[in-house]
């Protein structure tokens, strides 16, 4: 299988990589580019822990061919932390509201929340619950996650 050259923006940086046509975005991110913050839970787009932003939309990177991101912008959990190490308000709220337990869904959940708040800076509880329903969490029962997103939205969750 021949490789395909793609160029895209990853966390604000220009990337030029060669991938196989069947390489999935999550494998490009984790295995080729070494960004392991994005997790793999089911490899069929059901659990959502692999969520990243593609052109600002939350997508499951475990079922998205990497070639599809050519010419587009991808943001991962690593891209949310500022260069000086400062956390994004959503990340901060996840800590202060106790929305983190095992942490395996956390990156995907936070990316999903980011997509939501970028579109709806002040969502209702119901909008938050709908907005994050694509990411499974087995630890928290979701209440503290909803609370964290609300807290972040009140603090101006948009970057």
């Amino acid at each position, binding site marked *: 299988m021949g490789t395909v050259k793609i160029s895209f923006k990853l966390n604000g940086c220009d990337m030029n990589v060669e991938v196989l046509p069947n390489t999935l975005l999550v494998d490009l991110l984790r295995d080729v580019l070494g960004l392991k913050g994005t997790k793999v839970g089911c490899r069929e787009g059901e659990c959502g822990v692999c969520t990243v932003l593609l052109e600002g939309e939350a997508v499951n990177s475990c079922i998205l061919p990497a070639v599809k991101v050519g010419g587009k912008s991808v943001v991962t959990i690593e891209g949310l932390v500022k260069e000086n190490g400062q956390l994004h308000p959503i990340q901060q709220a996840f800590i202060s509201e106790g929305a983190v337990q095992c*942490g395996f869904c956390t990156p995907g959940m936070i990316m999903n929340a980011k997509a939501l708040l970028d579109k709806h800076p002040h969502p209702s509880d119901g909008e938050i619950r709908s907005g994050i329903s694509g990411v499974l969490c087995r630890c928290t029962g979701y209440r503290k996650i909803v609370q964290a997103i609300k807290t972040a939205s009140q603090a101006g969750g948009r970057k």
Partner: protein
Amino acid sequence: MAEKSDKKKKVKVVTKEKEDLQQLMAAPIGLSVVGQSLDRTDAFLKVSGKLSFGADYPEEGFLHGKILRSPFPHALIKSIHVEKAKQLPGVVAVLTAKDIPGRNGFGAILPDQPVICGDKVRFVGDGVALVAAESERIAEEALERIEVDYEPLPPVFDPIEALKEDAPKIHEKGNLLSYNKLRKGDIEKGFAAAEVVLERTYQVPILEHVYLEPDIAMAIPQSDGTMLVEGPMQAPFTVRRNLSAVLGIPINKVRVRQIHMGGGFGGKEDSPIDIGCRAAVLANHTGRPVRLALEREEVTLQTSKRHPMVMKVKIGAKKDGKLVAFEGVIYDEQGAYAGLGPVIPPAGGSHIHSMIMMPGPYEIPNVKVDAYLSYTNHPYGGAMRGFGAPQVHIAHEQAMDELAEILGMNPIDIRQKNAFKQGSVTATSQVLDQSVGLLDTLDSCAKAFDWDRRYRETGYLDKERTKRRGVGIGMGWYRTSIGTSSDGCGANVYVHEDGSVLLFTGITEMGQGAFTVLPQICAEELGVRLEDVRVVQPDTDIVPESGPTVGSRSTTLMGNAIVLAARQVKEAIFEMASEMLAVPMEQLEAKDRKIYDQKHPNQSVLFREVVAKCMGKGKRLIGQGWWAPPMASLDPETGQGNPYFVYTYSTHMAEVVVDVETGEVEITDYVAAFDIGKAINPRTVEGQIEGGVAMGIGYALMEEVVLKEGYIQNMNLQNYLIPTSLDIPDIKPIILEVENKYGPYGAKGIGEMPNIPATPAVLNAIANACGGRVRSLPADPETVYWAIKEKGGPPKH
């Protein structure tokens, strides 16, 4: 005078720091670290994506392990040919049963599961060969080249069928793995005295844990012949014991090191033994590091499950609701291997725990329970958040409601009449002499939920008469220990010259918050801050034996060990501080990085200064604590004794809306109250409550591993459904603290309790809403629809 000026000097040093000056003015009162909702110590790494789980570790240098699995639920292995697989370039080893260096069997309790099956397979997914290759793809290709000739045997999939004489024998010793009985009082007299008798059968399906992190193990042979195994585990010491036997080397040549875990819920007590042993056998054979990572489907196929059960309940009561007799029969399905089902005397094993818990948290003078644990050709049963208790709670809590209905009683009144209180005697004749807050949880839950009003106001919500609202209650109890000799917990506390602290325990962090709660206890005891204590990842080479992270035991049992360890160090520190402050030791208190004179709180020295001085004088700043609960007892013939030393209690109340035309259930409100002795970190406790309830709701409404002739039909999360954010309401937790005199700061366990009464609370609410009683789970729309039909259709009013 000279002494006094010395003291002043010390104070001066302190006052250099502004923050310290402010705190110096405030007298130390009460607890300063324990009881605080401090941020989790691992939260920063987790939100920033920087925390490495097993799958995030570099793969360079590792071989990739793969397991060839049985395609039959029950079959003899006639022959196996691996040559074609071995010839594939990149394949380094293909192992069969004959290649196991030591015991070809593993298991948490009974090592009856072959590392590699030699003569027979017992479930779809049993391992028949292992491959190690340079890449995962090559390993997978190698699996396809292995030729196995099977002779299928008749399988058995039902725990009751399995006990029949002519049932196919799964193991040589027969299909009855364990039979346990409980006898209290005189059951016949009890029922003779009853004015009402209720008999019901309840059935629960097999469940998958669905921890989001798939299992992984890495085995790395060391140059000195030691085998190092790393992975996310709940029971590193159990893994070590099994590795030693399977590899045929002494325990001190096995090193098991924990890495961060993305959820366990009991499931990562068994599975790391399985993949740890298999990875180690490959690593041992090849002399190279081997990584064995499971895909989601493999997790579903291969790892332990929650035991499915058929439960028969017969309850006798007086007309006023007072219970006089309880008879129960449990047909508990173990599946193909012993897992965590059978008993380790006196009380370990999920099966005997089910038996002990079955009559519920109620005082009943006459009790009889017979509990059968059968092998079948299904996946094997292990631990899952409640260890045999969720199942039996579904039985007794529904039976209590059904009984209340017959008696025309309010469900909370019948419970009030029978619930455990201080001094109550359990079904095992254990006297509950302390920390019994069950009725407190009932009262506070009922108040917060506004039960009386809501119970009156159930009924149709809409003019079209399609949606009916109902409320339900679930009460429960749960142990804080395993009930075996392996309950002993060790902790080491090292204080360093700068006042920073290392805490060594064998308790693992799976998301529950142990790495925040345990150092909180350590910090409180030493008088330092949480950020001063670093928890060392469990590593069996360097942490003391601690038993497994199960049974809601960590905070209480390990907490006590930490207190004891910290006190050893504190004694040395107080000796020195006493000299420095010229104050008797018993007058000192340690708090917020300082040692105070309790009588003159403005007289203090910095913790780190005392520590530095201790170091200079050769004092020991290493503490080792060991704590084991009062020894458990349980008579094998009568099931009488004190199996667990303390219990957590809880009451849940749920409101549901049922669409009587479609059977769809929406949970609209939820309150859950807990007596947990003491919340070391209340926010973490809330997290346990909310997550546990959510899992219990999943059990009630949607979860089931669907099996057809031994084959799992829902291997991935597309069709094994767990609750999403849209299925779970805002759960309102209530934390009550009825002090446990055996617990650190009065604490008891919380990890599993929230999961347990949640399921029956929802089922009772459904029955209250629509009249339909779901006695065989899950209560999915179709099941609820038929339950309504069975009752003669939706209620008229």
